């Protein structure tokens, strides 16, 4: 699969995934130490999906990430400081203290659409973006992510159906991480593969190994290209595992240890680094440097964010409406 990527791209993917993991680890650590505000979500295990899909988009394409997609914000260009500041409720955060953790981190400068908790509200929003591109005859694509749990919702189906009828340039990536909060797949649905849901709407459905960034990148790239060429929407099921709890407060005792162990062996970040080491694209030294660069970047981001000011309460009621 990795054949279609050149070395620079391969290294980029490694960098973004490692940066994502480093920032994710830092968030988890800080919140456990009581240095956080409210809750936070970890996307550990989802890096290959968030980064691989995000990297498959062009700069004019639009993406609506969800709560496991830290890597997608990064790969689209949002800085770790701003993300960290948002999670800490600071004024320089993306939402200026308005919305929590990764919620609401939209910024149209990066063609990122923010999400709300109510799942999967981002789906029709991304579809609407895709429909505007179609209407304006712009060669742009909208991509969004959702979870296995969200694939049971009505809105998932309504969106796919509408996308199919409109033949919209829309790509939907389902991050099947085996659980919706505490609920395992078999209590959520009676099917094996979420990708079959594409057939209910006349949409192309694909399954991909969500821990293989090159595979994710390839299948998403193909879907994006098809969408851009007027070939209509694609549903991609990326199979992976949520490696930590639903959110920071959740110890996920309900997840069997063996399941986590099995998936731990296929950690998407190290899997890709190992591939690149084997291929000789990365040397052990370069990898070490990559790790330490990511650590430095994240530490600097934390330092910046921690010393940034909180929002001024006098501004609390401003910005509800566009002027």
């Amino acid at each position, binding site marked *: 699969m990795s054949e279609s990527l050149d070395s620079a791209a391969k290294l980029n993917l490694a960098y973004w995934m490692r940066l994502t993991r480093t920032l994710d680890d830092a968030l988890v650590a800080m919140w456990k130490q009581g240095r956080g505000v409210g809750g936070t979500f970890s996307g550990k295990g989802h890096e290959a999906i968030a980064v691989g899909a995000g990297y498959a988009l062009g700069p004019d394409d*639009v993406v609506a990430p969800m709560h496991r997609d830290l890597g997608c914000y990064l790969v689209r260009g949002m800085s770790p400081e701003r993300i960290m500041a948002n999670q800490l409720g600071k004024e320089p955060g*993306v*939402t200026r203290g*308005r*919305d929590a953790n990764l*919620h*609401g*981190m*939209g*910024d*149209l400068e990066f063609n990122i*659409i*923010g999400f*709300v*908790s*109510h799942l999967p*509200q981002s*789906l*029709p*929003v*991304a*579809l*609407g*973006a*895709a*429909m*505007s*591109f179609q*209407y304006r005859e712009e060669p742009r694509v*909208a991509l969004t992510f959702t979870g296995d749990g969200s694939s049971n919702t*009505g*809105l998932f189906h*309504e*969106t796919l*159906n*509408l996308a199919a*009828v409109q033949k919209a340039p829309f790509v939907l990536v389902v991050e099947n991480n085996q659980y919706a909060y505490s609920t395992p797949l078999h209590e959520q649905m009676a099917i094996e593969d979420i990708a079959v849901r594409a057939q209910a709407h006349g949409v192309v459905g694909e399954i991909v190994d969500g821990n293989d960034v090159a595979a994710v990148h390839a299948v998403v790239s193909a879907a994006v290209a098809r969408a851009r060429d007027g070939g209509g929407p694609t549903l991609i099921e990326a199979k992976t595992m949520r490696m930590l709890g639903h959110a920071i407060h959740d110890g996920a005792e309900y997840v069997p240890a063996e399941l986590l162990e099995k998936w731990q062996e296929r950690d998407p970040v190290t899997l890709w680094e190992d591939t690149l080491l084997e291929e000789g694209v990365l040397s052990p030294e370069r990898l070490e440097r990559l790790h330490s660069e990511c650590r430095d970047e994240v530490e600097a981001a934390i330092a910046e964010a921690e010393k940034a000011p909180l929002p001024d309460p006098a501004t609390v009621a401003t*910005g*509800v*409406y*566009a*002027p």
Partner: protein
Amino acid sequence: MTATRQLTYLDAIAEALAIEMENDPDVIVLGTDVGGDFGGAFKVTKRVAAQFGPLRVKNMPMTELAFIGAANGMALMGMRPVVEVQFADFISTGFDSIVQYAATTHYRWGASVPWVIRAPSDGGIRSGPFHSQNPEAWFVHTPGLKVVAPATPEDAKGLLLAAIRDDNPVIYFEAKPLYRSLKGPVSDGSAAIPLGVARIARAGDDLSIITYGSTVHDSVQAADEVAGDGISVEVIDLRSLKPMDTDAILESVAKTGRALVVHAANRMAGVGAEVAAFIGEEAFGDLDAPVRRLGGLDIPIPFSPPLEDAYRVGPHSIVQAIREMVAW
């Protein structure tokens, strides 16, 4: 810009849609059955469907949550979708896309969501519990939305133009009993009537009725009726419910000392409660009598004529309230 023609309430809406679609290619219309030769359950979009075709007047599958959600996405991309829900009653099916997504977006991350939802509301036409609702209170309570409810053809046109041009999500409640029954003068041109400004539908000195939508006409009728007895009633047509023209309310009540709030929606925790509570708080010293409210009963809206008539506010109940209040 002088009022030269008489248009129905419906044609005034249709004209505003056409004007703004001509002015601005980013304005498109979405909804179930709005397009093609059909042009909507009430034919409000028939004119624009014929003029602009299916790329700009788009039939949607009956999936309100998704197509209002899609309108959110279009609006974020700078388009100005005008969504029709077939009846205001069905706006609840798209609720999350409105109250959770559209309403909160600008506050959260600063992006504008400039859409309009056109919602044919109100009853009196024997359509029963699911084709007669006036659900505006849900949205007036929700931060981040604007809510409009024109009572006349002139306002229907001018407020729709303003709503489409507004950079925020605006819910525009059409009083469907007025569609073809009400004709009135409508200005030429494309001037908008600003949101948030009430209108004095009838001037008076003894009592203020604060109302909107179809009950503006019932109120004026009631006011005319009691005028014979020397009771001078002012009727304030709010036009916008959110933002609300609180200055106009205070000014009228300061003059009359008596306030009656009237709407077609059911009374319990309705928009009238906000208006009455506001007056009680801000105009306490002006009041010569308690602020009263009239609205529908706190029941689903029944369909059989004697029941629906008993459910609804009308000129008769307004006259009675006026007389009681003046005698207080």
